Every structure is written in structure tokens, then in C-alpha cells.
């Protein structure tokens, strides 16, 4: 993403113009390919549900669209999206902040790392789903239990990535700064932390995807609102068309949130994301 901009090194205005035109052609091409992929996908779906399978079990896209319209019009679906997103956001942000702070310490203080690593290595296998039953007992079915579950899922992913990033800050870079006169705090803040940014951001992206996976079971088992609850309620009432609306919503939402996340990173952190090859 950074390189796309930086590869425009030609100095003549003409060359730059040509490069821009080339990028535009590429973008149009990519857009057309995405569009045809989606159209083919919908066509296969329509075919399967109306010809091969029972349309009650797999409602065709046309039916799903018809069901979605009133849900969109009444704002019902947006209320569910809003509540699920706010749960993800609170859990994800608090989990990321806690993980970055602790991860940085673990990456820097060997003793702390050696002491806590075995515990982390064991706890990370407890997925948020595995924690739902105890979360309900601890925090009830209110917002707090969902915040906790998303926090739990986010925390370990971002923690492990942050620790690795801090750990792998190149020795040559730290030593170079040291002999230019940097003290320990300066090496830490001006060299080690920026070097870890690509790792931290990668961890957060993975954690965001995982948050989308864990909010659904959490809301199915322990909530009275949100997309997961919509799934659960529709299942009880055998409303397969409403289930499919919820499933499509999850796909579209996850896709857009990831795009927004990438765009934010490109805008704010682009210069930290470029890795320099080893010559």
C-alpha cells in the first residue's frame, strides 16, 4: 500500500501521468473482476436454492433481498448492527490498549516475559466462546459480559504480536541509535516502539476479524439484542430468510470494517508500515 505511492519515482510529469493512468486502468480492472465475482456468486446461489435445494432451507438471494428491505426501512437491522458494533468497539479498543501496554513490557523485560509467558501460552487456548458460560455467571447477559468476551479474544492476539514486534526490533537499529547518543528511554520510544508498529497493527487486524467471529456466539448465548440475537431469534421461529439477512450483514460489515481499518492505517501510520528489505 505504501509502495503503490512510492513506486511513482519517475520525475517527468509525463511519466507520472502515465503511471497514474496505469493505476487507474488497474483499479477499473480490479473493480470489474470483483463485480463479476459477486454476480457469478449470486447466480450460483440463486440456482442452487431454486433448482437443487429446498428454497426454505436455502432462501434465494431475491428472497433474502425482499426480507431485508423492510428490516432496512424500519431501521431494525441498523439497531442490531449498532449494538453489535459498539460491543466490538469497546472490547476491541480496551483489549488492544491493555495488550499493547503489557506486550511492550513483556518484549522489553526478559524476566517478566519468562515469568508470564507460560501462563499466556496456556490461556490463549481459551477462545472467547469457551469463556461465554463463565462470563454470563460473572457479568450476566448485559453489556459487560460482551465487552469482556471481545476483550478476551483481542487481548491475547494483540499481546503476542506486540511482544514479538518489540522483541524483533533490529539490534543494529538500536545500537546505531545508541552510539548516536540515545539513552535507554530514547532507544525505547524512538526506535523500538516504532519498529514494532507493523506487528502491532497486524495483530489488531487479526483481532478485529476474531472479534467479529466471537461477538456472534456471545450474542446467541447471552444477549437480548445484536446481530447474534437476531440469528438466534430467527432460528427459533424457523425464519431462514431472516437468518440469511443476518449472515449477509455479518459478511458485509466485516468486509467494510476491515477496509476502514486499512484505510485508517494507511492515512495515519503509512510510514511505519514499510519494511526495508535486507538489501
Amino acid at each position, binding site marked *: 500500500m*505504501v*509502495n503503490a505511492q*512510492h513506486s511513482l*519515482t519517475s520525475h517527468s510529469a509525463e511519466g507520472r501521468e502515465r503511471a497514474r493512468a496505469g493505476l487507474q486502468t488497474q483499479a477499473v480492472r480490479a473493480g470489474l473482476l470483483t463485480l463479476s465475482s459477486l454476480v457469478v456468486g449470486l447466480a450460483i446461489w440463486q440456482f442452487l436454492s431454486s433448482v437443487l435445494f429446498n428454497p426454505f432451507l436455502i432462501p434465494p438471494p431475491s428472497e433474502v433481498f425482499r426480507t431485508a428491505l423492510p428490516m432496512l426501512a424500519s431501521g431494525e437491522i441498523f439497531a442490531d448492527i449498532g449494538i453489535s458494533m459498539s460491543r466490538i468497539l469497546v472490547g476491541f479498543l480496551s483489549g488492544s490498549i491493555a495488550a499493547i501496554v503489557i506486550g511492550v513490557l513483556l518484549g522489553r523485560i526478559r524476566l517478566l516475559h519468562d515469568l508470564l509467558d507460560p501462563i499466556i501460552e496456556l490461556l490463549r487456548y481459551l477462545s472467547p466462546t469457551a469463556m461465554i458460560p463463565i462470563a454470563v455467571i460473572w457479568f450476566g447477559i448485559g453489556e459487560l459480559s460482551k465487552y469482556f468476551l471481545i476483550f478476551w479474544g483481542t487481548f491475547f492476539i494483540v499481546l503476542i504480536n506486540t511482544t514479538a514486534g518489540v522483541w524483533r526490533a*533490529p539490534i*543494529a*537499529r538500536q*545500537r*546505531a*541509535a*545508541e*552510539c*548516536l*547518543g*540515545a539513552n535507554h528511554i*530514547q532507544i525505547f520510544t*524512538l*526506535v523500538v516502539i*516504532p519498529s514494532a*508498529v507493523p506487528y502491532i497493527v497486524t495483530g489488531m487486524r487479526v483481532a478485529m476479524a476474531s472479534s467479529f467471529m466471537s461477538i456472534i456466539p456471545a450474542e446467541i448465548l447471552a444477549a437480548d439484542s445484536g446481530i447474534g440475537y437476531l440469528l438466534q431469534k430467527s432460528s427459533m421461529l424457523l425464519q431462514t430468510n431472516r437468518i440469511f439477512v443476518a449472515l449477509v450483514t455479518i459478511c458485509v460489515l466485516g468486509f467494510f470494517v476491515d477496509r476502514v481499518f486499512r484505510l485508517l492505517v494507511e492515512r495515519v501510520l503509512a*510510514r*511505519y508500515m*514499510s*519494511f*526495508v*528489505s*535486507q*538489501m
Partner: protein
Amino acid sequence: MLRVHEVGKVFESARGRYVALEGVSITIKPGEFLCLLGPSGCGKSSLLNILAGFEPVTSGTVTSGGKPVIRAERERVMFFQDAGSALLPWLNVEENVQFALRLRKLPKAEWPAIVETNLRLVNLDTHRSKFPAELSGGMRQRLQIARALAADPEVLLMDEPFAALDALTRRHMHQVLLDIWQRTRKTVVFVTHDIAEAILLADRVAVMSVGPRAAISKVIEIEAPRPRDLTHPQVAQTFHEIEDLLEPELQRSEGLAEAN
């Protein structure tokens, strides 16, 4: 003046004790260009790390201007072979040089002049807003030189700085380095395993024996005027002299590698 006196370095690891250096002594004069020459694994990089203050000696002493070297300081700037990791990839050319000035705590008003001087010296003044990833290998090394000079050190410590560059770029970098050295008169300690490189650059070449217990086996003065030509009889003779010195060392080194 850098004085290395009877320095020994022992590495303790799970695999045992390894005596890398033993009884290494040499005095490096201010403004001198010294090459540490030896085959791979002779401990020349260890010696350079000790000179920089990155690693402590096990025995003996190292002093810089009479003061013992116990940690890295701005008067001795290390220059790394892998410029990609030594530079800060999130800062552009100009900002990488400014990084050295910030650490020197110079007032910002003085920055532009120093940045300008040093970027011009290495011919990067027209590339100041590029990021390291957009530079060629040779340009990155030149940026590293500019950054090191901006710190205004007394000694430049260089660890096989041009070994990863292609032959043409390397020759060009030799000229750049000699030119800068002649203008600034910094002391240079340059580690290499390439006899030709050592002879083309150095005032003196310190030939190191192969480890374990590596030491400086001979110091050779190169008096031929610069720019030097390897086909010049006097230079060619020195080349063969060093080659003869290193030949048995290389065989020992290979023997050791096979024994392992």
C-alpha cells in the same frame, strides 16, 4: 587516540566456552585509516563491537582519549553493513540525518545547515524526501555515512560496510569514503575480509589470525599514495605479502570448519 591493550574476549554459552580474542593490542592514531583484515570468524567484528562499547572485554583494557571504553558514546559511531536495519525506515533521508542532531540536543536553528552540508557531502541532497526503502543499497550506505557525520564523532567504526554491494557500487563507495575521510580527517576503523579493499583504503592493515584465540598477527603500513592501483608494483607486492600471511590462516579456518 584509541588504545587496545592485551584484550581478551570469551563467550560463554550453553555449548561451552569460546575464547574469541586473546592478547589483542593495537594503538589507533587520531585521523588514521586502519583496516582490520581477516577471514570469517576471526573475531574482527567482536573487536569492533568492543571498540564501540557494545560489548565488554573479558580481560585487558580499551581506552579512548585516555578514558576507558565502557559503553557506546557519540564520539565513536558504528556503521553497519545492513543499512536497511540500521536506518529508521519511517523517517525520510532528511529526517534520518535530523535524528542524529536531535540526539545531540542541538538547537533546531542549527539543523538545516548541518543537514545540508552532510547530504551534499554524500550526494543525497536531491533525494531528501525519499524513504530508505526507495533508495538503492549504495544510497542507503551514503545516508548512513551522512547520519554518522552529523553526529560529529571522532571515530567511524565500519563493519564490512560495503560487503553486500555490487562491485561497481562498491568501488564508488570506496571513493566516497576516502574523499570524506580526507576532508574530515575522522579516525576510521574498517573491518573487512577483502585484501584488495584493505590495501586500497588503509594507512595500516592489521592482519588477524583465525580464532579461537585470535589476535593481530601483523600490522602492515601501506605507504603508496592514493588513489591506489592494484597493478602498481609496490601495491601488488603488499597484496601478495598479505595473501601469504593469510593463506595458512585460511587453511586452518577451513580445517576447523570441517572438524566442526
